[in-house]
């Protein structure tokens, strides 16, 4: 049988975690052991998740490659496919094809400090890198996570946030947009770029990984520049619409760069070379 590029792996939903209103995390295991054996990926890559009869949707693999035997994805219920996914129960079979795209060069970051900045539903692509780094904690110096959401309710991975908060080897700063705080909220209040400026993390020997809505990225980059980060020290991911995931369907390109193949991971330096088409 010749490989059919469009043929997904069959995946069983092992566990569903409710993260925030409309946001769920699926833990997926390969139905066929042989698929599991040949499957490998790296932090930053994404896949096409499908509900048979409904369609495919693109999101990142949110679990780190250091955890074997399963993958996780986190999605917000917004479109046709994510609505159908949301209706799936534990034990349901869905499709997954991937991994696609490039990776965060974690190996190159050895010996450096890491600063993660995430907004809203953009924590999942970063969570993969965060856990990857935490699982190899001795390879890195300081690890700082700044994470903001619109309201307290919208913060995802609440259990993990507690875990990171308790860890001595991680500095976690959470923030919600003004007006989004609950009475017992102990974190920061303010937009992510403002909080980054306030916290003022050191840029010395540090890699910044920024994921979030375009407007957050736009306002965070100048703040990082002020703190001494060069464009080569800042990484982000782009999320253009795509169908195939392997450079053929014609949707995701930003100028001559294909987000599905050349991305989704880009440095701020690379981003500056791209036309405004994302």
């Amino acid at each position, binding site marked *: 049988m*010749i*490989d059919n*590029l*469009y*043929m997904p792996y069959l995946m069983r939903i092992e566990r569903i975690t409710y993260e925030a209103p409309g946001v769920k995390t699926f833990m997926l295991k390969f139905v066929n052991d042989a698929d599991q054996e040949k499957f490998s990926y790296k932090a930053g890559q994404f896949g096409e998740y499908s509900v*048979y009869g409904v*369609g495919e949707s693109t999101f990142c693999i949110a679990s780190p490659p250091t955890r074997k035997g399963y993958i996780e994805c986190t999605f917000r219920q917004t479109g046709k496919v994510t609505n159908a996914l949301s209706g799936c129960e534990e034990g349901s079979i869905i499709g997954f094809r991937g991994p696609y795209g490039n990776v965060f060069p974690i190996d190159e970051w050895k010996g450096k400090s890491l600063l993660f900045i995430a907004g809203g539903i953009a924590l999942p692509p970063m969570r993969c890198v965060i856990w990857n780094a935490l699982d190899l904690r001795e390879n890195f110096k300081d690890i700082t996570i700044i994470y903001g959401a619109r309201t307290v309710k919208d913060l995802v991975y609440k259990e993990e946030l507690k875990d990171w908060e308790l860890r001595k080897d991680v500095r976690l700063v959470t923030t919600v947009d003004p007006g989004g705080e609950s009475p017992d909220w102990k974190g920061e209040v303010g937009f992510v770029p403002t909080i980054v400026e306030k916290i003022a993390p050191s840029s010395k020997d540090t890699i910044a990984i920024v994921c979030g809505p375009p407007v957050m990225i736009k306002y965070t980059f100048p703040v990082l520049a002020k703190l001494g980060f060069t464009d080569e020290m800042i990484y982000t991911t782009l999320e253009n619409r795509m169908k195939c995931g392997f*450079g*053929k369907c014609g949707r995701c390109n930003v100028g001559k760069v294909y987000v599905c193949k050349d991305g989704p991971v880009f440095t701020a330096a690379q981003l500056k070379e791209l036309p405004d*088409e994302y």
Partner: protein
Amino acid sequence: MNIDKRLVRKDSLEKLFDILKQNSKKIYAPSEKNGKITFRDAENFKGISTGYIQTTQSSKDITFPRAEKILDYSKSKEGMSVKGIDLKEIPEIILWGVRPCDANGIGELSSIFNWDYKDEIYNNRLSKVTVFGFSCNKSDEYCFCTSVGGNPGNTLGSDILFTRMGDDGDYLAEILTEKGNVIVSIAPQLFEKSENSEKEKYLAEVPVRFNHEEIKNKLDKFFESKEWIEQSLRCLGCGACAYVCPTCACFDIQDEAHGKKGSRVRCWDSCGFSHFTIHTSGHNPRDAQSQRWRQRIMHKFSYMPERLSVYGCTGCGRCSRACPVDMNILENLISIQEVTI
């Protein structure tokens, strides 16, 4: 390499068709409906259109169908079963009457489907197609193959290229590939030894209208040009240009459910549609028609040459002929060449 050139008498073409049919070959040839000529399953030789400059639609439907099943699934109590399409069921097809620009387009389309990831569904379809190219002895103001490296007698992409020698003359057949040899071996008596193998004088004259390398270089610095807005004002954002194009490959993937079973289908899509790139959030990186028109030209004349080392245009002129509002790609390329940055 010396090309095997044969003489096919004008009456022999029908015989060839009949013999191939007798050998159970499926032949797709241009035929007319509502005044438009398109490749269809040809039952008999009489139904094949002749004398056309160009078919309305390209032949890409054969290797890259407008809607193509890529897998079947069925749900049952036992679980989920998913089956990819059986590539063995893809029929062998003779594509009859392809213009050299279209035949050339097959290569350009292939480069998209084989860029890094190899699309075996496409490749399998292509491997089962034998292309009978027919050189052009006339052209119109929409043709510009010579501006993008082609010519009216281009052999690229054809397995056999037929050139009619004179208005009512016999055909010169150039046997170009192993697939072409197979055809000759089916009806060797129809492929006679050729005395006259000069085809140039019978070919249409298509003047070179622009320099494609100059355009490519210019486009590198042209992204922000106002020219895109001016050119695209009358564009209505339909997909006619993309769907008649031999090299446009944009597609969508859709599921078609029928109760507990169904299939996943790959179907044509177009960068001209306003919702082509829209995010679920509502954000659209190509929100204006000018941005979508820019994408169409940039993809063909800048991104493809840069990333795939081929141009995404064969100069067939179909998009310009089909456009309901006279968006003429040749005119627009010439004005890009002329405008100063």
